[in-house]
């Protein structure tokens, strides 16, 4: 195994710059070595994964943090595209939304979200949430390898 594989790469899909800054602020203060990419809407998110648009090659994030209310293609559409794609479906998607409506929560899990979190109302709570997220998803959880999904896919399909 090379070090390369151990770099954690998070794709943050979020249109609100203030939210981006805040999330980065919280996450960079923590103990993991994380590389960040930011997509400002749903179209950019898919571009990032495919290496289209302003990206020259496909990104391979370990984890995707997805906001729901996005310009152009919204979070649900992104989720639906990711989870019905052979390549992308195994990337854990964590929905981070200000909506606590039952409808949003249910529909996201239905579309295949791996986790749904509601953005809390104050800084302390937000900080706590990001810490938990970090500890669990980056510390506890065993994540799939970033690259070489063709192998994973073929194992998964029993060839």
């Amino acid at each position, binding site marked *: 195994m090379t070090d390369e594989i151990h770099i954690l790469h998070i794709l943050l899909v979020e249109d*609100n710059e*203030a*939210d981006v800054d*805040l999330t980065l*602020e919280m996450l960079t203060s923590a103990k993991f070595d994380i590389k960040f990419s930011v997509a400002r809407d749903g179209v950019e998110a898919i571009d990032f994964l495919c290496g289209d648009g302003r990206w020259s090659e496909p990104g391979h994030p370990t984890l995707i943090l997805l906001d729901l*209310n996005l310009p152009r293609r919204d979070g649900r559409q992104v989720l639906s595209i990711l989870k019905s794609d052979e390549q992308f479906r195994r990337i854990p998607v964590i929905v981070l939304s*200000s*909506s606590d*409506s*039952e*409808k949003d929560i249910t529909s996201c899990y239905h579309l295949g979200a791996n986790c749904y979190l509601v*953005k809390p*109302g*104050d*800084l*302390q709570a*937000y900080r706590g949430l990001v810490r938990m997220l970090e500890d669990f998803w980056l510390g506890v959880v065993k994540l799939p390898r970033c690259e070489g999904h063709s192998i994973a896919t073929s194992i998964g399909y029993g060839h």
Partner: protein
Amino acid sequence: MAHQIASEEIIRLAVELSPSGMMMTDADGTIVLVNAEVERLFGYTREELLGRSVDILVPMSMRAAHESDRASFMAHPEARRMGVGRDLYGMRKDGSKVPVEIGLNPIKTSDGLMILSAIADITERKLADERFRLVVEACPSGMIMTNADGTIVLVNAEAERLFGYARAELYGRSIDLLVPAVARADHANHRKKFLARPEARRMGIGRDLYGVRKNGTQIPIEIGLNPIHTSDGRMVLSAITDITERKRASEALAARSEELLRSNADLEQFAYVVSHDLQEPLRMVTYYTELLAEYLKDRLDEKSKKYIHYAVDGAKRMQQLVKGLLAYSRINSQGRSPMPIKSEIVVKSVLDSLKVAIEESCAEIICEPLPVVRADTVQLAQVFQNLIGNAIKFHGRHSPCIRIGAKQNDKKWTFLVEDNGIGIDRQYSERVFQMFQRLHERGRYEGNGIGLAIAKKIVERHGGRIWFDSEPQHGTTFYFTIPAADGENA
């Protein structure tokens, strides 16, 4: 055994005892035989009648016609009814007239051709007919009677008014005259079906029926059909109601309630969008003010810290309001259909979730047996949560003592949540249920002032009502009603 009687005597007795008047006249109209009923009917003794002309029994006005009728009968003698289609009358000895029906039979005797008349007194029937006509006439609905062919035979005043025709214009005409052209073919079929299985019923259930007035305009109507057997055959009596006004009123009502529903839905949608979209910028204000305070922690003086605290506090309070508004706006859109649920379990779970508050305030909770009701579990829990939460929060000098119970009246249950708290002044009885209304200065009691507004909306969504009784400083009892589950008793 009775005496043997001659066959001639039997015939005489049969004639004599017949319930109809029986009279025989010769070719000249001279009376040769009458029975007891004829004597009764006309008020003459038979001695007074025998040998006299039948004309004495015919009203003056009809005598001339009667004579020529007799002549034509003699020319073509055959058994038939007299004067079909005309009203016949006999004249009594005292000059009064009696309505009769007469059957004529030619009889050949050794004395030549005779006419045997069977005369029935139809006074009773005439009276019944007249009563029927009066009832029909006085009926507030339009009444039209048609025969099997659909020919109009009777019309009352209201039907004249309804359709704009005088009755003379309608008698003898087809009912089609009053049926819109597009419906005529169907109408004929329906009439056939009705006559095949005649029973009193409404016409065209589920269809909109229209009648055509003389001026060509159409009016919406409702029609009740009644089959009637008459001596002239099977008839159909239709009771017709003009429903123009009712239709207009119900259409106006439907339009208004639809408008109301729409404007309610619009409002809810508005509240949802506003509260949802406000959350984002509010979070930003809160986060960054707090973040700023952290960054500048060592460089801020007390005054600046206080001001930052005000800003954060204000934003957080607004978050609470927006949250409340969001919850309020979701009551209808995210509510589930009510189903039978055990309210006791609902209350138990609410008490569990309030465990910390109950322990901290040393509250004593008395929960009486509670019924099965028809409700949305989550929403009913919300109502109890808000009421019990308030009862704990607004306690007086003593630690709170709260009683939860229910009693049934009719098809609904009245729940009560009783406390010994600070009470609510009667003058606020409406205000407490309004959104964002607080009766106490901020800081003394926590809350966003929306709990009771939500409780009220939930209760009303379930078809219930919420209210309270209170004595300031001694306590408050909130009541609310929820429909009982079908077939469930206490």
